[in-house]
């Protein structure tokens, strides 16, 4: 069964002019595209203030104020479905203390694990919130976020880190 194609140009303005309707439609389409592009571009430099981003920022701000960490502007944001995981590489210097801020919103608490440069898991027992870490050596570490398979739905996550 084929669906009826939308007929935007069939809109008839009060004066009966199709031409004006077409111009108006084009203008609205252009405006919509411009707003969408602006939104996309804005989202890249400034993350939208979603609950998980706000939660991660609250944790980060507390760590900055109370424990003198310097936090990054950049963060990782994404939605993880039940049973899904993501591994995020980060480069850490052994001289620094690090704190990770994990904000989330959704049907389950994500579990967070960290793996050393050789891919070996470092036990943490941390699920969400603030997680402090002193790397034993300088190099690439891997942060794994995992959502339990029995979660009721996708979980929106935001991860950021700071150092001192």
């Amino acid at each position: 069964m084929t669906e009826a194609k939308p007929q935007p140009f069939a809109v008839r303005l009060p004066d009966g002019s199709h031409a004006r309707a077409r111009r108006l439609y084009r203008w609205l389409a252009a405006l919509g595209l411009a707003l969408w592009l602006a939104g996309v571009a804005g989202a890249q430099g400034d993350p939208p203030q979603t609950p998980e981003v706000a939660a991660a920022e609250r944790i980060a701000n507390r760590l900055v104020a109370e424990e003198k960490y310097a936090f990054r502007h950049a963060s990782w944001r994404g939605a993880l479905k039940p049973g899904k995981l993501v591994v995020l590489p980060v480069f850490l210097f052994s001289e620094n203390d690090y704190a990770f801020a994990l904000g989330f919103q959704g049907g389950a608490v994500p579990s967070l694990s960290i793996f050393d440069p050789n891919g070996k898991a470092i036990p943490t027992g941390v699920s969400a919130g603030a997680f402090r870490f002193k790397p034993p050596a300088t190099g690439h570490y891997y942060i794994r976020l995992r959502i339990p398979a029995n979660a009721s739905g996708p979980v929106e996550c935001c991860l950021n880190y700071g150092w001192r």
Partner: protein
Amino acid sequence: MAGLSGGQGQEPERDPHSAPTCPAPAVPAEGEPAEEAAAEATDRSPTEVEAEVLSIQEVEAELGAISMPTPGEYFAALRHHVSPRWRRHYRGSISEPQTDRQKVALELGGMFADGFLILEAKDGQGIANIARDLRSHATILGAGERFGPVCGDAFQSGRGRALEVVRRDLERSQLVLAEFLRAQRDEKLVALIQVGLWLRTFQIGTEVLAENQEEGSEHPKPTLCVGSPALLERLAMLMEKIPAVEGEAECVKDVRADVENLANMWLGEAGPRRTESKVERTQDRIQRLLREISEKR
């Protein structure tokens, strides 16, 4: 990053910003969705989970801007060994922007590093100055309109603002520029900015270490002059992903060759064995490269 890049040369094409694979990858069977593999992994022993999880190519693609550190983190690491006098490592006035886009990108990267250096020196006026230079260089890349306001927000009121805020804004302006260039399909320039950033950062690092070294004594931690061999190797990988093209600026060719040589040297695969010689050679090469980048030709 020795030991992490097993199977090099046989790996599938990856994002130039991606991290190397972990050793002994256990890639999911062809057609097996990563999600299913992940769900299965939850019922396995930690070792099995670890091997599978870290090898999933799809997961590796999830690389955000946090996969590379910032110079701020590197400078903090330096501070644990020495007490740098940051202002001594300022560069002289930055020349007018060049016309070669690749050189401009390399210079821009170096200027972002200067921004982080200025933050370490807590120099409000310096922040305003570097903001002006960053804007003029970004304009050459066509990013003036997008980058200018962000950069302006970040630095115009550098004086009196909390350092933490300015530091985040500096990183934010770099992200905005990178996103702009990616949207223009100028991934090459994004990579060159990253490489320029770290070359200048390492130059500052080698100078700081040399300044604090007592005569006749050894460097407190020589590898720190390049952050770590793993970081240098990462830059070499970034440069490898930039295809050499006809008419390419001479300095880009030299950056590609020298970064690879330095990475090999620090990974112990080539060059002098004496640590002091490695530090000196690193310092010389980076200085030469940065001079070449800023030269007008």
